[in-house]
C-alpha cells in the first residue's frame, strides 16, 4: 500500500459529500440554497473545483456547523445528539423473529467465540508478510465507570426495549431477563473486547456488498474471500451470542478508505427479539449510529472522535488496520466459566488448542498469528496480566514439529526425542463439477511426526490443518505397532504445505486441495468429512477420495513409528500363562492395611539433635495399634544405621508405652507425635545427615 493511512486533512469534496448525506440534502438543494448551478456543486464534490470563501461560510451556516468547519473539515460533534439507537420497525406482515437463527446454530461458549473470532481475523489478514495480532480483553465495570459507559452507549434509550423484549417464555427473552437482573443486582457489567490488528477492517459501503455490511447488516452472509473458510459467516453470530443482551459495539480502522477516511468507523448493533413498547411493534434489531435521513430512520456508522471511542472502551492501541468488537454484558453461554480468571483461562486454552500452529514462527519470520488475553476491573485494576499465548508451552511436541518444518529441519527417521520426521501423503483432488476438467489432480500433503514427552496428556494423535494453520481435525491413531514410541503428528494440507516459503505463489495442486478440504468442513470447521458442500461442488467420487486420504494419513503415521527390528521377539509364554508369571513391580496400594507415615518434617535443634514431627495414617481397626517408630540415617548404599530416640512426645491420639512404642487410641485413623533423636547414637553430625522415619508394628500389640 502506498497511501498514507493518516491523511493530514481529507479533501474538501468527500467531506462535503458526507455532510450532505448526513443532512439528507441533495446536491440540487444545496445548489439552490447557495444560488449556484448543480454542476458547480458536483465539481466541488468530485474535487474538480473549490468554492469561493463566501460560499464556504454559507455552507457552514446551511449545514449548521461552527464557522470554519469546512476549512478544518470538522464533523458535527458527537455530543450534538445525532448518535442514538435506531430500531427497525416491526414487519408490515406481522412476522415476528424471536431470536437470531445463526446464533442458535452454534453451541456457544467462550472457546467457540475465541475460535470463530480468531478464524475471522486470520481470514482477513491484511499484510501477508506480517502476523495478525488478536487481543482479548475482559473488563468489568462498576460504579461511576459503569455509569459513564452506559451514557456513552446511550443505555437509557435501549434499556426499555431490552426490558420489553425480556419475555421469560422465550429462550432469548430469558437470557435478557437474566442479564438485566445481573446488572441490577450485581451492579457490574462485563465487557469483552476482541481486537485484531493487521486485518482488513470493516471496509466498503454502508448497505451494499462488502465487509461492513456482511458483519453489521446481514445474517448468515459469509462474504467469502479466496482463503476464507467463511469469514464473517455464521461465526460472527458467536460475538452477539456471547453478550447477555445481544449487544456489540464495533470500532474499525479500515485498510482501504471509505468516504475518504479510515480511522474510527463506529457502529453498534443489538439483536433483540420482536417486542412491543408503547403500543408500537419493533422487529428486534437496532443500530447505534447516525440517523440516515434517506433510509427512513435506519442508522449509519459514524466517524467518531478519539474521546468518544475512549468512552466506549474502544480505543485501538495502534494505527494498524483491523476491528475491535466490544461485547457488552459478556458471559459464558455454557455457564462453565464464571469468574474473570476462569474466563481468561478458557480463552487462552481455546486459542492454544485451535491456533498453536498459526502462532509458531520459523527462524527470522513472523508467525501467522499472535494472540493475547488479559483481564481487568474498572479499566485499570489488573486481574490477570496480559498473557501472550505461547504455542510451545501448550503444545510442545506439535509446535516443535511445525517449527522444524518451517525451518527446513525435518529428518527421514527418528533418532532423537526432538527429531521431526516429514513424510508425503497423496491426496487426489477430484475435478469440480463446473469445470470441463475430468482428471483428478494429485496433491502431496505433508505429515510431520515427532516423539511426545511424558507430559503430553493426549499422545498418539494427528492434527490436520490447511492454509490458516488452524487445527481443523484432531484424531487418535489406533492400531499402533507394538513398541512404537509415544508421538504427536501434524498433517499440513493445501496452502499449509507452503508455509516455509511465503514469498512464492502457491502451487495449483495446493490451491485445489485447499478448496477441496474447505468444502469438506462443517460450519464449525472442526473436521474433514463428507458434507453437502463437498458433494455439490465436486465430481462423483469426492467422498471416496476423502476417505482414501484419511486412511493414507493413518497408514503413513503407523509406518513412521514402526520399530525397525519388528515387535517383541520370539516369546514362548503360552497364552494361558501370560499375566500369571509377570514380574512387573506391583502397583502402589491406595489404602494400605498397615500404618503409614503421612508426613514427617523436622530440623536439627540447638543441641544438635533431630526433632521430627510425624503424622501417621492408620487403617480402620477396632483394636488399638501399637507401633514403634524407627529413625535411620540415610546412606547411598548398604545398611542404614538406626539411631535411638532420646524421647517421644505424643501429640494426638496416642501415648508412649515401654519408652519406645506408641499405643494409638482405639479406632483412631490419624496420630501425631514428635520424636527427638539421641545425640550419643548419631554416627555423624546431624547437620550433615539425612534421616528417614519408618514404622514397625510391635508384635503382640493387641
Amino acid at each position: 500500500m502506498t497511501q498514507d493511512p493518516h491523511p493530514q486533512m481529507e479533501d474538501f469534496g468527500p467531506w462535503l459529500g458526507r455532510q450532505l448525506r448526513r443532512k439528507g440534502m441533495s446536491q440540487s438543494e444545496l445548489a439552490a440554497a447557495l444560488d449556484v448551478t448543480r454542476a458547480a456543486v458536483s465539481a466541488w464534490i468530485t474535487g474538480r473545483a473549490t468554492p469561493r470563501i463566501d460560499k464556504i461560510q454559507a455552507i457552514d451556516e446551511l449545514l449548521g456547523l461552527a464557522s470554519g468547519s469546512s476549512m478544518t473539515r470538522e464533523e458535527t460533534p458527537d455530543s450534538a445528539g445525532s448518535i442514538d439507537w435506531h430500531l427497525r420497525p416491526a414487519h408490515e406482515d406481522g412476522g415476528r423473529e424471536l431470536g437470531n437463527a445463526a446464533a442458535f446454530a452454534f453451541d456457544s461458549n467462550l472457546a467457540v467465540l475465541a475460535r470463530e473470532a480468531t478464524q475471522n481475523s486470520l481470514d482477513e489478514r491484511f499484510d501477508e508478510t506480517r502476523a495478525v495480532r488478536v487481543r482479548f480483553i475482559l473488563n468489568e465495570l462498576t460504579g461511576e465507570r459503569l455509569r459513564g459507559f452506559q451514557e456513552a452507549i446511550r443505555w437509557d434509550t435501549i434499556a426499555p426495549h431490552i426490558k420489553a423484549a425480556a419475555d421469560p417464555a422465550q429462550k432469548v427473552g430469558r437470557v435478557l431477563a437474566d442479564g438485566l437482573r445481573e446488572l441490577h443486582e450485581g451492579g457490574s457489567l462485563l465487557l469483552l473486547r476482541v481486537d485484531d490488528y493487521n486485518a482488513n477492517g470493516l471496509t466498503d459501503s454502508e448497505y451494499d456488498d462488502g465487509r461492513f455490511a456482511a458483519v453489521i447488516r446481514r445474517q448468515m452472509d459469509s462474504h467469502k474471500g479466496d482463503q476464507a473458510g467463511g469469514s464473517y459467516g455464521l461465526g460472527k453470530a458467536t460475538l452477539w451470542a456471547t453478550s447477555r443482551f445481544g449487544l456489540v459495539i464495533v470500532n474499525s480502522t479500515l485498510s482501504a478508505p471509505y468516504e475518504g477516511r479510515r480511522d474510527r468507523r463506529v457502529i453498534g448493533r443489538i439483536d433483540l427479539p420482536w417486542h412491543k413498547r408503547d403500543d408500537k411493534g419493533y422487529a428486534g434489531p437496532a443500530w447505534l449510529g447516525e440517523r440516515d435521513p434517506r433510509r427512513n430512520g435506519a442508522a449509519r456508522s459514524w466517524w467518531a472522535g478519539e474521546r468518544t471511542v475512549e468512552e466506549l472502551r474502544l480505543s485501538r492501541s495502534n494505527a494498524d488496520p483491523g476491528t475491535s468488537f466490544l461485547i457488552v454484558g459478556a458471559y459464558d453461554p455454557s455457564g462453565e466459566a464464571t469468574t474473570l480468571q476462569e474466563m481468561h483461562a478458557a480463552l487462552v486454552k481455546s486459542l492454544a488448542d485451535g491456533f498453536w500452529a498459526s502462532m509458531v514462527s520459523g527462524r527470522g519470520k513472523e508467525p501467522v498469528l499472535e494472540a493475547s488475553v488479559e483481564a481487568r476491573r474498572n479499566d485499570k485494576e489488573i486481574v490477570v496480566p496480559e498473557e501472550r499465548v505461547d504455542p510451545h508451552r501448550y503444545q510442545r511436541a506439535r509446535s516443535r514439529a511445525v517449527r522444524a518444518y518451517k525451518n527446513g529441519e525435518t529428518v527421514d527417521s527418528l533418532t532423537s526425542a526432538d527429531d521431526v520426521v516429514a513424510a508425503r501423503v497423496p491426496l487426489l483432488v477430484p475435478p469440480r463439477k463446473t469445470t470441463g476438467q475430468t482428471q483428478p489432480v494429485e496433491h502431496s500433503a505433508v505429515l510431520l511426526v515427532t516423539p511426545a514427552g511424558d507430559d503430553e496428556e493426549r499422545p498418539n494423535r494427528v492434527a490436520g490443518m490447511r492454509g490458516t494453520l488452524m487445527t481443523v481435525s484432531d484424531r487418535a491413531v489406533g492400531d499402533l505397532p507394538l513398541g512404537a514410541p509415544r508421538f504427536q503428528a501434524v498433517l499440513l494440507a493445501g496452502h499449509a504445505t507452503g508455509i516455509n516459503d511465503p514469498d512464492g505463489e502457491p502451487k495449483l495442486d495446493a490451491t485445489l486441495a485447499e478448496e477441496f478440504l474447505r468444502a469438506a468442513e462443517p460450519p464449525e470447521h472442526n473436521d474433514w468429512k463428507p458434507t453437502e458442500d463437498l458433494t455439490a461442488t465436486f465430481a462423483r467420487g469426492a467422498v471416496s477420495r476423502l476417505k482414501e486420504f484419511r486412511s493414507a494419513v493413518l497408514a503413513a503415521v503407523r509406518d513412521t513409528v514402526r520399530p525397525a527390528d519388528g515387535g517383541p521377539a520370539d516369546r514362548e509364554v503360552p497364552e494361558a500363562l501370560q499375566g500369571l508369571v509377570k514380574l512387573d513391580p506391583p502397583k502402589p496400594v491406595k489404602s494400605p492395611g498397615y500404618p503409614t507415615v503421612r508426613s514427617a518434617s523436622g530440623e536439627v535443634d540447638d543441641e544438635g539433635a533431630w526433632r521430627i514431627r510425624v503424622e501417621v495414617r492408620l487403617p480402620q481397626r477396632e483394636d488399638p495399634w501399637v507401633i514403634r517408630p524407627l529413625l535411620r540415617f540415610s546412606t547411598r548404599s548398604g545398611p542404614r544405621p538406626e539411631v535411638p530416640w532420646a524421647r517421644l512426645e505424643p501429640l494426638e491420639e496416642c501415648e508412649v508405652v515401654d519408652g519406645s512404642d506408641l499405643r494409638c487410641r482405639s479406632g483412631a485413623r490419624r496420630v501425631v507425635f514428635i520424636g527427638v533423636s539421641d545425640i550419643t547414637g548419631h554416627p555423624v553430625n546431624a547437620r550433615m545427615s539425612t534421616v528417614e522415619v519408618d514404622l514397625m508394628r510391635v508384635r503382640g500389640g493387641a
Partner: protein
Amino acid sequence: MRRILPYPVVVGALALEVEAVRLDDVSLPYEMISSSNRTVALHHLRHADWCTARMNVTVRGPAAELNAGPWRSMSCVVSLTERRTNTHTTTRLPMTSELGAWSGQIELHRDDHVGKAELTATLVATVDGVAGREIAGTDDHWTIDLHAHIPVKRDDLVTRWVDFNDEAHPWLRVYRTDPWVVDTSGDTPTLYLNSGFEGLRLLLESRAPADRPAKEALAGRIAMDTWNVLFDAAAQGVRDWPGGWRETVLRRMLPDMYTDRSPDDALRELSTTDAGELRSRVLHAAAKQARMSAALGAYIRAIRGRPQEEK
C-alpha cells in the same frame, strides 16, 4: 518412608529425559528409547561390537522455585550406577539457556557394565554456606539395558519349551519325568516347560473352548509352583531389599503375606517368622499371584457339569 533433610530442599519434581543415543557414533533408532518405560535398549544387532554409548540427556527442574529459592551455585549431575559391577559414573551437565534446565552428553563404557545400569539425576547446591548439598533428585530412574533390543522395563521371567530328554540339556535329564522346572540360578529366572511330557503342550496351547477350564487350572498350578520357587530364591538370607527380579518378587508377595505390615516392616518380619507359618503364608501369596482360586473354581464347576453363570 520419608527422608528429612536439615536444610531446605526443592519441592517440585526433577525430570530426566534421554533424548538420543549413539553407539560409537552410530545413532540408535528412537524406538529403542522409551520415555514412558524410562528405558533404553542398547542391544542393536547391526552394531553389536560397540565400546561406548553416548547419550544426550536433559534435566528439567521447577524453574520458578529454583529461581526464588535459597540455593546458590547450583549444579546438576547425572549418575550411572550398576549394582552388580559396583560402578558409579557421575557427569556434570552444563546449564542451558532455558531456565531450570541442564543438558549434555554422558558416556557409558561397555567394559564397566554387564547388565542394566541405572541413570539418575541430582541437583546439588550451596545451602546455608555448606557446598555440595543434594537439594533434588529424580523420583524415577532410567534403566539402560545392555542386552535388550526393545526398551521394556521388566525383569521378565523367561519361559522356554524344552524336551527334558534332549541330549542338548543334560542337566534337565534328571527331571525328565517332571512337567516343568524353575531355574533361578541365572540372571533372569527361567521356567522350563517339558515338551517331552506327553499332552502338556497340547493342553496348554489348546484353543478349544472345552479345554479351557483344564488349561487354566493347569496354568494356575504352574504359576503357583513358579512363585513358590521364586520366593524361596529371593528371600534366602535377605536383610535389605535385594534389587532386580528378587526385589520385585518380594514386593509383589510380601503384602499378601503380611497384610497389616508395610513392605519394609514385612521384610524385617521374614527372619523372625517360624518356618511352618512362613510356608503357609508363601503358599497363600503364591496362590494369589497365580489367581489360583478362580481357575480352580472354574475347573471344578466344569467337571461337575454345572453351568457357569453368564458374565
